[in-house]
């Protein structure tokens, strides 16, 4: 079996040595957890508990309207002491349900193992996944049950489990794959069953040979499941690039993976699905990597949702030097937070602390047309051309250049010798295109 990859992308320093060998440790369960009502893509939840209510671990405390949403569950047992707006790792202020931990660790009575999960129907499995509040745990936080819902006229030929983890510093999935491989495979089997799909692929980047070897051994007896080793290249873990690498299929412009006959889930999501289906445990904790050159003791933690970044940083011995940036997620696509007092949410795959650098920053130049951004773009866009259009407010033209296909992976900006903030221009283009479309729609409605 050959090692596969996609076209474009960049080779990054991994910075994974510090944590890839460290077993996952359970982080201290905090005295107070802060659970934002929005931890997923889609409709935010409304709290269904009130200040003063006693809640149990795993009890549903917030739910949303519609199909594209995911309920929130209490990650500790205790008392709701506040429902208030607080800083969110996404950068804004979001309503949070604040629970004071009574440290009794009492499970809600809804949490119980299923007597025979083998007999569950595809519909049952999807329902359990929805009720457990499971979302894409690689960071995209798209509600998992939506991806698994049947789409008229489309069929999944492959389920791909994403164990690529191409962001520098992050090793949470790597550790999970080494320590809980059977949970991941069990999750994959439920996903396969719920979509009536026969073929599963576990995709792992070649920089994790131990995980590749382990899964190869474990899937020998599993029918229809294989391991695919992938070249170490960023953004190998991007959905479209992953699908192409594994199947040579391209997701059409504006389409979804299912349009290419593929559904992708993160390995962490698969493990969470196995826990939900077999044990009835909703998504109340996750594995994340706390690393970076600004942290004393990098680690892989199993963390209760709602634990503050600052608490984890303290557990890791505090800062090394003065922190400059704290990034929720990875170096390439993560968001910086303005305070460490933001909670871990469902999509927190990592926290990277960067210390203040003394070296001066390189200045921004005019575009020198080196075309390195074009070579790096895994979507084959011309980032520099789009950026120039955005500078002149030519958003229609930017749309014609397929600006909307941009996945904001950052490969272009990483490569740019003129240090142009290309991703920022691309984001602007996408926002304006959305606004333009919305306006066209409302104008059309008026007529």
């Amino acid at each position, binding site marked *: 079996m050959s090692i596969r990859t996609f076209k474009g992308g*960049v080779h*990054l320093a991994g910075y994974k040595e510090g944590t890839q060998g460290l077993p996952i440790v359970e982080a201290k369960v905090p005295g107070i957890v802060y659970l934002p009502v929005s931890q997923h893509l889609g409709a935010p939840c409304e709290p269904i508990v009130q200040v003063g209510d006693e809640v149990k671990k795993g009890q549903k405390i917030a739910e949303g309207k519609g199909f594209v949403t995911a309920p929130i569950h209490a990650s500790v047992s205790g008392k709701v002491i506040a429902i208030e707006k*607080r*800083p969110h790792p996404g*950068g804004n202020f979001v309503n949070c349900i604040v629970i004071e931990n009574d440290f009794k660790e009492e499970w809600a009575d809804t949490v119980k193992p299923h007597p025979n999960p083998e007999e569950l129907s595809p519909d049952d499995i999807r329902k359990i996944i929805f009720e457990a509040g499971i979302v894409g745990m690689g960071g995209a936080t798209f509600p998992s049950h939506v991806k698994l819902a049947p789409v008229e006229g489309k069929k999944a030929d492959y389920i791909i489990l994403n164990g690529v983890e191409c962001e*520098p510093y992050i090793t949470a999935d790597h550790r999970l794959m080494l320590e809980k491989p059977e949970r991941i495979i069990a999750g994959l089997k439920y996903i396969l069953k719920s979509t009536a799909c026969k073929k599963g692929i576990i995709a792992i980047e070649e920089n994790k040979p131990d995980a590749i070897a382990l899964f190869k051994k474990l899937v020998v007896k599993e029918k229809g499941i294989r391991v695919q080793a992938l070249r170490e290249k960023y953004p190998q873990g991007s959905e*479209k690039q992953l699908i*192409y690498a594994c199947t040579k299929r*391209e*997701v*059409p*412009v504006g*389409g979804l993976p299912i349009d290419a006959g593929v559904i992708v889930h993160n390995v962490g999501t698969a493990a969470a699905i196995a826990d939900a289906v077999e044990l009835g445990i909703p998504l109340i904790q996750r594995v994340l990597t706390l690393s970076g050159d600004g942290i004393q003791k990098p680690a892989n933690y199993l963390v209760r949702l709602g634990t503050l970044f600052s608490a984890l940083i303290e557990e890791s011995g505090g800062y090394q030097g003065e*922190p*400059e*940036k*704290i*990034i929720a997620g990875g*170096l*390439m*696509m*993560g*968001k*910086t*937070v*303005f*305070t*460490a*007092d933001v909670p871990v949410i469902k999509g927190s795959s990592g926290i*990277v602390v*960067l210390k203040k650098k003394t070296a001066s920053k*390189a200045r921004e*130049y*005019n575009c*020198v*047309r*080196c*075309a390195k951004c*074009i070579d790096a773009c*895994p*979507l*084959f*866009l*011309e980032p*520099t*051309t789009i950026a120039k259009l955005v500078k002149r407010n030519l958003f229609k033209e930017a749309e014609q250049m*397929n600006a909307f*296909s941009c996945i*904001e992976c*950052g490969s272009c*900006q*990483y*490569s*740019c*010798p*003129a*240090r142009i*903030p290309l*991703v*920022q221009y691309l984001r602007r283009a996408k926002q304006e295109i959305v606004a333009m479309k919305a306006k066209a729609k409302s104008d059309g409605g008026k007529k």
Partner: protein
Amino acid sequence: MNTQGNLLIVSSSPHLHSENCVATTMRDVVIALLPALFAAIYFFGMDAVTVVLTCVITAVLSEAIAQKIMHREVTISDGSAVVTGLLLAFCLPPTIPLWIAAIGAAVAIVIGKHFFGGLGCNIFNPALIGRAFLVASWPVAMTTWVAPLGLDGVSAATSVDSITTATPLAILKGGLAQGLPSYGQLFMGNIAGCLGETSALALLVGALYLLFRGHIDWRIPFSYLGTVFVFTWLIGADPVFHLLAGGLMLGAFFMATDWVTSPITKKGRIIFGIGCGLLTVIIRMWGGYPEGVCYSILLMNLATPLIDRYTRGRVFGGVKKHA
């Protein structure tokens, strides 16, 4: 909760950047030009040193002055003016009066680059603009050649006594009585010609470095050289002679590959190289000048926006567009 004091820096992703920047790239280009510079000093002695210094110093100074006058940030530290000065010097005759060389460098930087908006905005290769200006203004000074030193054992100090001669291409063009140099002489560079263009070997060493460092795309030089080779062979000329003579090696690897003035698409770069090759041979064989590298690249610079436009690639997940 303390959100007031000690706020962290918030910035847009990505938070990681490659070591590359414009200044390091320019440094690499200068490094790549060093072998040819040494060859020039070896073959043309102190003349080479003074012309190169004149061009580089004038280029940097005129960039600083132009930017000061235009109330722009002075960016001479990025090294691009040094590169322009070096490249211009490389396509001047060794005996050029220094004041002419200085005017060429100033024109290259001020008119060729800053009139268009500075680095990244120029349409034409600035060094070639400088050369074209000098060829039009002082045609005699720009076509007075001396035989190289060095291999004859003549020391650089006697360069004032250099014998006036003709370049291989001029010999070919004019049907002069002098014999054409051998391939070996052309490859090593002990022939008459512009300062930095004569030694194919030294230029190739530098070009390999640039290719290895990923600063230039092989598509332009290879399609350029390939076209010259095939075209001259088809019309019955000597393809190896045409590859090695004149400024082709310098032009193909260091001028046509200029980021700013060449296409950004891969397909476009091949078209660009082929266009340069065709124009070079046409000018050499049927044009008024013995050499066509400079004008062919300038003409193709002009076509670059059009080439880019019609060679846009397919987007991932999209169907191939027919332009």
